[in-house]
């Protein structure tokens, strides 16, 4: 029997007279970046450091018969050459949350078999990068090529070459979940809409690659690592364990990242390589990926899925049930398991009242770089899949695509979807209404008809309505297994607030530094809100992992909500102490005081007050004026744990609450397809998002536009294509096509604000929204444009070549 505890946290009331939360202030982080003083990882390199270059496999699949490093070792400026075999003696395997990790062991360098083009086989440590690369070119590796397996469906076939022999199969995971009564819902449905869909792999590709500077001190046994990867204090054991050093001898210090979009999440390999090399040579060592390193070997390619989907519908447009069967090509390793599908299950039914879901996932291993994280973490793919199905249903049933969506909207909250996750709040009609208006939808529908009839032009309107989950709980990584061996995961985030003797406030953050989001601005605005100070007066510092409080770091659009909770909690502690102190100074009962405009004052007697500065100086310098129990200083911390997550049921028919703060958006691109060239051009693009209470509307808008630009890349241009031999076809930005300013339209942006009942200020995360929506919207738009030709595109990216092929095939079949 399915038993779940769905107890929610208390419903909050949010104050509505906010001074700073909700204002589009200029970001507090920006001046240093504008002046070129960002302090990124490469900026920390000093002349005493040695540099690492990695020798990479040119083969997709081969045995390493021999490696000769003699010439490389005697090359100028070389301090060490470490092969995979030596690295395996120095380091344990890299952390792997996948099923059965012992049978697909992942190491920082390949030991006896290379499994994809770009996998590292040896590293050189030299005086500078030029010399390190010179020496790497002198390493002679004797390979015995093996047959590669590249296509995920062929990888499942009998007799396919095995990526990992010990696994005995290329299928790392295969499971089917039923949520609700799928069979009955399908039996009662009028029609079943079916399709096969293909989403090829792309990736975050920030302009800055991953890097690490490691300094191992043989005198103390301590390792200090600066890195632009996530430096979760909660997870530093991942690096420490691999390097076989005690966690209390490792300090990981966060450095601003020049973009991540997921791709610097848990990037442990660069830190391990730098740490291993530093320990070997006894000098500080820097390893900075170059672009080829990053494209071929970043461990962060995005989803790569084949879908067979069935959507059960009633003729009137009511959606009943979904059957999803997906094969996901994970590449050569599977570091995060199938967490990407857990993510999809957080919002698998979209904004619609769909009563049941069957979800089968097969995680397939092939000779490619492995999957990691890319903005959306797999739920953007689900959004795309579901919206293509809804769109197809509307076409097949002759229903209006707007109406069919609207009539299925969830309207009562909190709403539990069949998988067990909750949608905390929302107002999907309000978002849709605003989007229809902002996009000038009706006018474009008329224009679309006119331009086709009068000018033979193919215009498409791509309206989609989809979800934007936020604030993940890590259960999505382990509810796949019946024996998780862990209770519900708390995923904390911490903030320390210190009020100095003159009332100046410093906030300390403990997870990854800035990576293009704006944690400093968010925290400054929240502190300003709590203490009635100027946000630019708040000082923000970061702490390394060793003396840091528990912190999980960004990911799953969690940072702003979690930091808000931590700031709120630390503020409450500081204000409680300040109130006691003020009461003592004013010789009055603490309950007779109220916080007004930056200080405590006697209720109804505004002239009897103590500002935060008055209180702070007394607490710092004049402790003996206070009673015994009041200590000197005014500083406190809050470790804020995930506010709403529950255990999955033992039978896994209910996965519990794991992604509760549910945003929503409607995107409406209007495009024109040139049927002679296969090119797609934007005529208009409107996007309305609801991420709960806005903290800084301008920066959220920036994430919406930027995420949409990435979604445009995913939909039209970007692909890590591998040929039949497993050669990566995109190894520079000449082949991997990131949209430029000419490929991204100007967006009309709308915001709706439905506060979460469960978070501080009602904030929901919104960092991934643009990319959650744009691929789905553009596919719908292109199919809308090409519908008169009988073309339906089911594969992303919709390159000119793919579009022309689809148009030609449609013409030939007529």
């Amino acid at each position: 029997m399915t038993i779940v505890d769905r107890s929610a946290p208390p419903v909050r009331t949010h104050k509505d007279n906010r001074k700073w939360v909700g204002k589009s202030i200029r970001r507090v982080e920006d001046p240093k970046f504008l002046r070129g003083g960002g302090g990124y990882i490469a900026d920390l390199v000093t002349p005493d450091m040695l540099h690492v270059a990695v020798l990479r496999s040119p083969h997709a699949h081969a045995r390493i018969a021999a490696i000769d490093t003699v010439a490389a070792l005697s090359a100028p400026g070389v301090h060490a050459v470490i092969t995979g075999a030596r690295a395996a003696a120095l380091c344990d395997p890299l952390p792997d949350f996948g099923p059965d990790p012992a049978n697909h062991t992942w190491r920082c360098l390949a030991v006896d078999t290379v499994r994809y083009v770009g996998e590292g086989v040896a590293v050189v440590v030299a005086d500078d990068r030029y010399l390190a690369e010179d020496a790497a070119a002198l390493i002679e590796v004797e390979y015995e090529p093996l047959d590669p397996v590249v296509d995920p469906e062929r990888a499942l076939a009998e007799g396919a070459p095995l990526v990992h022999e010990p696994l005995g199969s290329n299928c790392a995971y295969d499971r089917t979940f039923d949520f609700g009564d799928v069979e009955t819902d399908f039996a009662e449905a009028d029609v079943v809409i079916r399709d096969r869909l293909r989403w090829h792999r792309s990736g975050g590709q920030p302009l800055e690659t991953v890097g690490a500077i490691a300094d191992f001190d043989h005198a103390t046994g301590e390792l200090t690592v600066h890195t632009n990867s996530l430096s979760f204090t909660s997870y530093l054991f991942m690096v420490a364990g691999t390097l076989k050093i005690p966690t209390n001898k490792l300090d990981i210090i966060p450095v601003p990242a020049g973009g991540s979009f997921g791709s610097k999440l848990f990037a442990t390999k660069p830190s391990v390589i730098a740490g291993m090399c530093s320990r070997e040579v006894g000098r500080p060592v820097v390893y900075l990926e170059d672009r080829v390193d990053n494209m071929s070997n970043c461990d962060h390619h995005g989803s790569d899925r084949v879908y067979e989907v069935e959507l059960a519908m009633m003729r009137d447009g009511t959606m009943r049930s979904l059957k999803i069967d997906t094969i996901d090509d994970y590449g050569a390793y599977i570091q995060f398991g199938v967490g990407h599908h857990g993510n999809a299950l957080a919002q698998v039914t979209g904004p619609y009242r769909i009563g049941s879901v069957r979800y089968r996932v097969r995680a397939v291993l092939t000779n490619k770089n492995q999957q990691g994280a890319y903005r959306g973490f797999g739920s953007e793919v689900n959004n795309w899949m579901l919206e293509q199905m809804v769109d197809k249903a509307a076409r097949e049933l002759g229903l209006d695509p707007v109406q069919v969506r609207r009539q299925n909207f969830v309207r009562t909250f909190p709403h539990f979807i069949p998988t067990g996750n909750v949608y905390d709040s929302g107002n999907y009609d309000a978002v849709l209404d605003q989007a229809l208006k902002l996009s000038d939808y009706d006018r474009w529908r008329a224009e679309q008809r006119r331009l086709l009839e009068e000018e033979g032009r193919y215009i498409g309107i791509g309206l989609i309505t989809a979800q934007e989950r936020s604030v993940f709980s890590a259960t999505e990584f382990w509810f796949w297994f019946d024996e998780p061996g862990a209770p519900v995961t708390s995923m904390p985030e911490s903030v320390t607030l210190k009020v100095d003797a003159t009332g100046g406030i410093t906030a300390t953050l403990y997870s990854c530094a800035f990576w293009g989001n704006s944690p400093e601005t968010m925290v400054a605005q929240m502190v300003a809100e709590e203490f009635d100070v100027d946000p630019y007066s708040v000082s923000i510092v970061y702490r390394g992992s060793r003396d840091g409080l528990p912190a999980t770091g960004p990911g799953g659009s969690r940072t702003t909500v979690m930091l808000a909770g931590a700031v709120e909690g630390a503020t409450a502690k500081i204000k409680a102490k300040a109130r006691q102190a003020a009461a003592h100074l004013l010789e009055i009962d603490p309950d007779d005081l109220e916080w007004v405009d930056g200080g405590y004052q006697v209720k109804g007697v505004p002239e009897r007050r103590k500002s935060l500065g008055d209180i702070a100086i007394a607490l710092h310098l004049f402790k003996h004026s206070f009673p015994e129990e009041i200590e000197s200083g005014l500083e406190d911390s809050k470790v804020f744990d995930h506010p709403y997550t529950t255990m999955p049921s033992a039978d896994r028919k209910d996965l519990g609450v794991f992604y509760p703060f549910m945003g929503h958006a409607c995107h409406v691109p209007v495009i024109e397809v040139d049927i002679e060239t296969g090119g797609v051009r934007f005529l208009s693009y409107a996007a309305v998002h609801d991420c709960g209470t806005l903290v800084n509307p301008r920066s959220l808008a920036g994430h919406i536009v930027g995420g949409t630009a990435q979604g445009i890349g995913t939909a039209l241009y970007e692909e890590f294509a591998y040929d039949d031999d497993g050669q990566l076809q995109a190894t520079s930005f000449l082949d991997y096509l990131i949209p430029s300013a000419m490929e991204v339209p100007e967006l009309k942006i709308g915001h709706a604000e439905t506060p979460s009942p469960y978070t501080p200020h009602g904030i929901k995360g919104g960092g991934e929204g643009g990319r959650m929506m744009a691929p789905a919207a553009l596919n719908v738009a292109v199919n809308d444009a090409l519908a008169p030709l009988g073309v339906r595109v089911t594969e992303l990216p919709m390159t000119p070549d793919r579009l022309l092929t689809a148009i030609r095939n449609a013409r030939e079949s007529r």
Partner: protein
Amino acid sequence: MTGQKRHITLTVNGRPVSADVEPRRLLVDLLREDLGLHGTHIGCEHGVCGTCTVLRDGASIRSCITFAVQADGAEISTVEGLAQGATLHPLQEEFWEKQGLQCGYCTPGMLMRACEIIERNPDPTPEQVREEIASNLCRCTGYQFITEAVVDAAKRMRADSDSTTGAQT
């Protein structure tokens, strides 16, 4: 591989610089490592993304595919030369105001490219700015707020230049 070092002299942000460099040494490495000017960043290393953009004699170049020896005798301008002490350049002000940056990594290259665009056309339309900054990739912003920032910086610079001219007459 390695070669005899060459002596070069150049001007960087108005200051004379001389260095002995291998012929293969990249200009971006000279700027970042030898001169400590970390504002110029390395993005794709193939001359595609424009992250490493600096001005050579007023024209934008990709410093990641330019050898240091190719800058011999040239005037190089980098992001470090934009602000005058506490005063940000109008482009920096407008990028801040419009949130024309997120991670900040492409920003120095964007700013230098924008300097060149405004120098050549002091009154660019948003469409012209989009077309011209398409030389430089930004992975964060989607370019919308960058475009706004460049257009408004040009406006601000025209106003500044008008007031300067007015003061002189």
